[in-house]
């Protein structure tokens, strides 16, 4: 009885330790920075060190602008959500403010598309045709959106 329980406990401890240890040792790094994303792109596209350097430089140069645009997009989305809430609750909206936000939104859309096109075309210039194809395949969801208005 004692021996059986001992072996069962030993098996449980061995299995749990192996599971936790192996998972902790091999756990993938968290996605927390542009560097992580670029390292992923490098793996996906088999970029040479020189290509990676150029791509990284490009993203570091244009990335902050993209982040600024993303913040602006968020701000406008929140504004439109607020207009909608006001329309439902109060039954009226400030049309002047809505028209101003809509104009901002149109201009921001154009700016985002131009910026995305600039980044993607600059990035594809440092790639081989095969890498370019793979890169564009990765960006398919974004390009599909952009292509709705104008081809890249």
């Amino acid at each position, binding site marked *: 009885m004692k021996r059986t329980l001992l072996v069962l406990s030993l*098996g449980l401890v061995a299995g749990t330790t*192996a599971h936790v240890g192996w998972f902790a040792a091999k756990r993938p790094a*968290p996605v927390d920075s542009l560097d992580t994303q670029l390292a*992923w792109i490098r793996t996906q596209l*088999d970029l040479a060190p020189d290509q990676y350097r150029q791509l990284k430089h490009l993203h570091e140069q244009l990335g902050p602008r993209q982040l600024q645009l993303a913040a602006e997009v968020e701000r406008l989305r929140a504004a439109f959500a607020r207009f909608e809430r006001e329309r439902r609750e109060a039954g009226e909206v400030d049309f002047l403010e809505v028209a101003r936000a809509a104009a901002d939104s149109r201009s921001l859309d154009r700016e985002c598309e131009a910026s995305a096109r600039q980044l993607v075309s600059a990035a594809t210039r440092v790639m081989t045709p095969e890498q370019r194809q793979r890169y564009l395949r*990765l960006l398919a969801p974004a390009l*599909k959106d952009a292509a709705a208005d104008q081809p890249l």
Partner: protein
Amino acid sequence: MSPAPDPLEAALQALSAETPRQPGSVQREVWRRLAHAESTPTSRTQHGWWRIEAAFAHPAFATVFVAACLLLGLFLAEVRLNRAQHERTAALERGYLQLIDPLLSATHLPRAESAAHQP
């Protein structure tokens, strides 16, 4: 002249005459009780436990059991890692796509299942 009767045969006949015949119901009752005793949950559990104990008493079986637990732990860790890797790839893809196109809404972004792009 007839041969003298065998004393052993006479003794056997006397014995069978003296031993009362077992009624058939007794035999059936014994078998019924045995079957009932073997089929009770307590008896089955005891029997099962006894077999487990007998198996674990063998050092070879105990070693194989511990090794199997260890391998099972490793296998489950690999399954978890695979899933974590898929989720990470999807998160990387989402993050990069949002960086490229800030207008891209969450509904257009790939989910974990479709994220495993192979070069």
